């Protein structure tokens, strides 16, 4: 946990309780998840109960209490992507990576998540690997898509 960085975040948001969501978002950006010790530290510094923080962290889907992989794969499950074959793409990712939605591979390389809609519906079905959006994905293309990230070391 980077105490200095968290202090800085709290400073920017003026320790305001109304900025709690933004504080947690910024804190999560440090390690791509929210470690328990960071939450305990924020709770103490902000004088806000850990229960309240836990309530927020578990309510909003963007927060993760467990470490994520190097790459986060987000399968867009918006309506246009669903019709275009997002469920089949998700199945194929489950098969190839041997993980389910919300899980991370044993080698901490990939985390798999679903997202309600990325707003890139004209390119459906979309699978995003971090900031790379892959358009018109079908189950047959996924292995090749993943290999580009697997080889990169």
């Amino acid at each position, binding site marked *: 946990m980077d105490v200095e960085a968290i202090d800085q975040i709290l400073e920017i948001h003026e320790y*305001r*309780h*109304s*900025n*709690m*969501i*933004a504080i*947690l*978002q910024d804190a999560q950006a440090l390690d791509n998840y929210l470690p328990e010790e960071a939450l305990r530290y924020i709770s103490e510094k902000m004088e806000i109960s850990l229960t*309240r923080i836990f*309530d*927020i962290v578990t*309510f*909003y*889907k*963007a*927060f993760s209490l467990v470490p994520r992989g190097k790459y986060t794969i987000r399968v867009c*499950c*918006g*309506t*246009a*992507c*669903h*019709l275009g*074959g997002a469920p*089949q793409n998700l*199945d*194929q990712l489950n*098969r190839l990576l041997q993980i389910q939605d919300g899980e991370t591979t044993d080698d901490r390389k990939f985390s798999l998540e679903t*997202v*309600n*809609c*990325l*707003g*890139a*519906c*004209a*390119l*459906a079905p*979309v699978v995003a690997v971090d900031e790379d*959006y892959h*358009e018109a994905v*079908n*189950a*047959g293309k996924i292995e090749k898509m993943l290999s580009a990230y697997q080889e990169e070391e």
Partner: protein
Amino acid sequence: MTRITEISGLEILREEILNKRSKDRTILRTCISTGCKAQKSLKVVEALKTAIMERGLQETVEIKKTGCHGFCEMGPIMVVEPQNIFYRKVKPEDVGEILSTLNGSGGVVERLLWKDPVTKEIVTHERELPLYVKQDKNVTYRSGKIDPADIEDSIAAGGYRALGMVLNSMKPAEVIHAVIASGLRGRGGGGFNTGVKWKICSDAPGDMKYIVANGDEGDPGAFMDRSLMEGDPHSIVEGMVIGAYAVGASQGFIYVREEYPIAIEHLSLAIRKAEEYGLLGNDIMGSGFDFSVQINRGAGAFVCGEETSLMISIEGKSGMPRSRPPYPAIEGLWGKPTIINNVETLANVPLIISKGADEYAAVGTDGSKGTKVFSLVGKVRNTGLIEVEMGTTLREIIFGIGGGIRKGRSFKAVQTGGPSGGCIPITKIDMPVDYDSLREAGAIMGSGGMIVMDETSCMVDVARYFIDFLMYESCGKCVPCREGLKQMHQILEDICEGKGEEGDMETLSGLARFMSTASLCGLGSTAPNPVLSTIRHFRHEYESHIYDRKCRAGVCKNLFEYRIDPELCNGCGLCRLKCPEKTVKGEKKQPHSINNSKCIKCGICFNSCKFGAIKIT
């Protein structure tokens, strides 16, 4: 940079900006919005920059990084101005050739032009594209034309002019009157009269008032708000300042989904620039009016698009809705009167002021005025963002602008309004699209997502999809929504797995009545709409799932099989190679067959067969 300290300063600045611009420059309008960026448009921009430097064209050619042009599927999009040449699917290696045509020879790079997939006709100019010809761009007019990161570009294109008019010569009550007279209704889903909402807030007692722009576009299949926030953020800021002036608010919030990083970036920049130019903050344009805006990022909760949840989220808590009344216009953020408008609604406000309410209201139908932005996606040929007059028929939108259905398949339904909306069948294709007609057909306008479905879309699966979506997004506070969705989900799941029973449809309808009456917020009360509208218009599909155990669309895995038509199969072997479970067998150049006991229905063979030999039975 000049800070505007009096209202007349805006027009002076506009003149200055226009004068200092060279008239005979070529401008390459290149989209860097989400759709085009996903297709590597930033690499195109980089390549352009390098090539322009190498050729010494800095004085004559300008790259303009714009927001969404609308034809997202064709990205990266570039329009060469003033010739208005439309290039699609531009790659970094194409830029040299494009620049070579700019030396006065008047040539075009023909292979980058759009070709009609049906008539094979090549279209050179942006203004002649079928996707654009039939549109009526008002709210989205500047998106794709201006650089959203450059406030001067917005000002040059008329930005903040309406705000100047308001601060110069209109009383708050006059602004509210104009918005009421325009007939503007909320573009986010509810469809409530915007001016009336403002009036209620304005009349509410209290010295502290707030205005919130709702950019938490959660409906899957909708990206109008994203495009607007990315492509023309100043129109939203301007609409907010006008609204704040009208109701007497001094603080504003823009709530944007975290999934929209470019929108957040462009809005943040717009706010900062507007403050620098004296168009936001203290003493706006020297008028004595103070108003500031901050951005709140959503954190992935669909329910936060609902206004009471959204307010609670801004207050820094878990966004669970509360009952209304009291309405936010009377008791909102921190208990103070608060206006919550969708971002597209706010972007309409400057248009109303600059055109005048009468002219604005001359467009549209009796109950629905102006134009509406839709995201036209799904199984339609031309997908993208469109803006049409209220009252345009579905046929004109889907078959005119959208160019009909892909792959020669037939139209089955169009889904509007997201998870609160419904599916409209072919029999209603000539229906005018406005708030009231859509409601009558069992759908809603919603925020403007329009998802077109063809014969490969299963309507029971669509209902299940939305119920599934809502079940995960229900905050769980009230029983009807939490438990009702769970029960509906189980029944639909059973139907899709071939375990449906007689009476299921009646149980679903009963649950729907209970949920719509007793749920706490709009999420729960409108949640049954996708089920009700599909039962109403596609009852036969439910029946064939329940009684015949068949999914004719080939979606519900337990209810269909793939079969290779030996007449059409030429034994190319592609499906055999691609099948992940090795269930396809056959000799080269001989018809293949599928071992259905091992098939996992991944659809890879179906999608890869070039001869249409794989059938759904």
